């Protein structure tokens, strides 16, 4: 039988739940967002608050087997907000224009569609070409996971993983840069 933990069940009711969630997760999420994704502090706080309020909103609808599952849920929600944040910021680029109006010049910001993130697409294609454990190794290491944990997850010796990671990253860099060079040549007609 699964043990159902709903830590804040008794304290549901607005601010208290938010406060408890804040104390448990806010700083960790904030440091993750800033360190891993170089999001500025203001935006990072906004994302953290969004996550916490969202969790507080839906908290009663879920029950979790253990604390790790609960953390997983919080993390997934935060990841979604982070993904939306990057999508919104990268989809449009703001450009400044000067507009003449009644003999005065005004600066106007206009949002134009940004370039497709081809680098990411190429990388994702290259990642798809890799073996499953290789992909996991790169992604987990990118998230700062220690080799010891990754080793348990992919069932490979820890010492070998360090070598594999260095080689994989080197190869990936070469392949992505090759693809970018080819794209550049294609776009600029150097064939």
């Amino acid at each position, binding site marked *: 039988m699964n043990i159902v933990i709903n830590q804040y069940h008794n304290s549901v009711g607005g601010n208290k739940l938010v406060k408890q969630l804040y104390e448990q*997760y806010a*700083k*960790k999420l*904030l*440091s*993750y967002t800033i360190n891993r*994704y*170089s999001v500025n502090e203001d935006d990072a706080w906004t994302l953290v608050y969004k996550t916490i309020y969202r969790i507080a909103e839906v908290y009663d609808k879920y029950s979790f087997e253990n*604390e*790790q599952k609960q*953390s*997983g849920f*919080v*993390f*997934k929600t935060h*990841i979604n907000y*982070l*993904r939306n944040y*990057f999508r919104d910021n990268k989809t449009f680029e703001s450009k400044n224009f000067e507009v003449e109006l009644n003999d005065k010049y005004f600066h106007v910001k206009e949002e134009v569609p940004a*370039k497709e*993130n*081809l*680098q*990411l*697409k*190429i*990388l994702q*294609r*290259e990642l*798809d070409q890799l*073996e*499953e454990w290789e992909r*996991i190794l*790169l*992604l*987990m290491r*990118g*998230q*700062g*996971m*220690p080799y010891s*944990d990754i080793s348990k*997850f992919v069932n490979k*010796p820890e010492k070998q993983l360090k070598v594999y990671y260095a080689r994989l*990253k080197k190869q*990936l*860099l070469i392949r*992505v*840069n090759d*693809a*970018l*060079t*080819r*794209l*550049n040549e*294609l*776009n*600029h*007609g150097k*064939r």
Partner: protein
Amino acid sequence: MEKDKMQSLSSAGLDQLINQAFLNLDFDQPQNLELMEQVSIKTLNRAGFFPSFNKLVFSKLVLFVAAFVLADGLSLCLKRLQHTPLKPVTSSEHTNKQAATEARSPEVSQTQPEALVAQKPISAPKRIQNNSVPLAVQEKITLSGTIHSAKTGEALKGAAVYKLNSDISVSTNGQGYYSLQMPKGEHNIVVALLGYQTYTFSLYSEEDVRKNVALKEEWKSLEEVVVKPDAYIFPVLTEKEKKANEKEKQKMAKLVARAKPIFEKSADKYPYIPPPADQAFSGFNMGSNEVTNLEYRTFLFDLLIHGKKDEFLLAKPEQHLWINAADQSLFDTLAGIYFSEKKYNYNPVVNISLKGAQLYCTWLCEQANLLKRKAGEPAIMVRLPYESEWLHAASAGRAGAVYPWLRDSVQNSVNWFLANCCIQKQPDKLRYPFNKTKRNPSGDDKKFDRKAYTAAGMTLANNRIATVDVFAYNPNDFYLYCMSGNVSELVYSNDAKTFKAKGGNWSSDAEHLKLNSEDEFKTVSASPMIGFRVCITSGK
């Protein structure tokens, strides 16, 4: 309008991009969900101890602990000095070094004068004695003993003693002795030696254990082996290989199932080929590369795993065809290694029969449709392309195109090759030097093998003497690689009655690389110059 140039990535840039790729993972898939949970545990359950923990803090902490330990050690030394009586300086001590040496030896201390007896080292305080055994050792136990034969009683050398499902293992020495260190707790230990029955026992102990094992002899009568002259020996796959094959298969099926009827100039594995202007046939997806050795091997091994040996025999490549290929002895060595060695994984598969290529398409189609059915999507069909489809795809929709690229030559403006072809067959038609660049206008470079048979041998690594990596050279505007050159590709003729091999290969001259050239092969069969690529259409 001129498009902006994409800048090449640095290592740090790649890290950021990998993190972005993590965000874009599909967490509905179980393996990605598991991955995310692992990261969440690390981020939210462990890392929170120091919210802004970094290497600097860690190094400071280490320094602090080191300083503390050092200070503790110094204070201990001082205490010892305070308790040690002053050493009497005698002339005999200066002259007789041996006496001083003996004074430090407890065995002879009784024979020493009183003054020297007082110099016997003070025993360390109890606290030090208790901690003299390192913590790591305390937590481990040692299992030791001897392994001997149950029948003769003689010690067995080289018997393997190991803990099940772990890296902890040791083998016995000449006296049959072994010693194994492992953590406290429960362990399953196995003792194995060829010719003896494997002995397994469970162990739960918090103290060192000594266990002697007597192994019983094992006799297995070998069954009669009949060797038929033409018998094919099927490869035997280990569990690890089977698992890896299954993963590769899933990956291949997933890529086919993901193919979408949208034309994007991106790096899709199966880019969409829009229909021609006259709408002679509808749009389809085509493999961006020729089928590789790795992909074909996955297919063959899967047949083997599922016991389809007849199909395996039909589909397996005829590697002996490498011998005297293109009337050259140069490629003979490839016969034993081309299909099986890892370094040729991404070279195109060759020497396959027509039936083999068709079986591969059917197999890939089945695998992809399994995924499609699960997702509730309509079925697709994987097959060889028709000649008209292939020509349309190769020319990137440009009617009357000579080559897949815009130039009317197999070399670009600085004389580099645009495809893998035979350079010895048309020496007068080529422009020299091959490696003229802005930095190197004279084109001198010793790296190039001037006697090479193919462009691959000329410009690429030593091992690529015939075919070349399927992603080599620039793709055409439909993002298809090596449409001309490398290997000729199997297609159905437009009336679907015969097969053709299109596009020229590593042994073709520049004329045969042209899209509308005459057919190089009068009859199409297994050959080291012929490979294939698949196309995907909707419907069954």
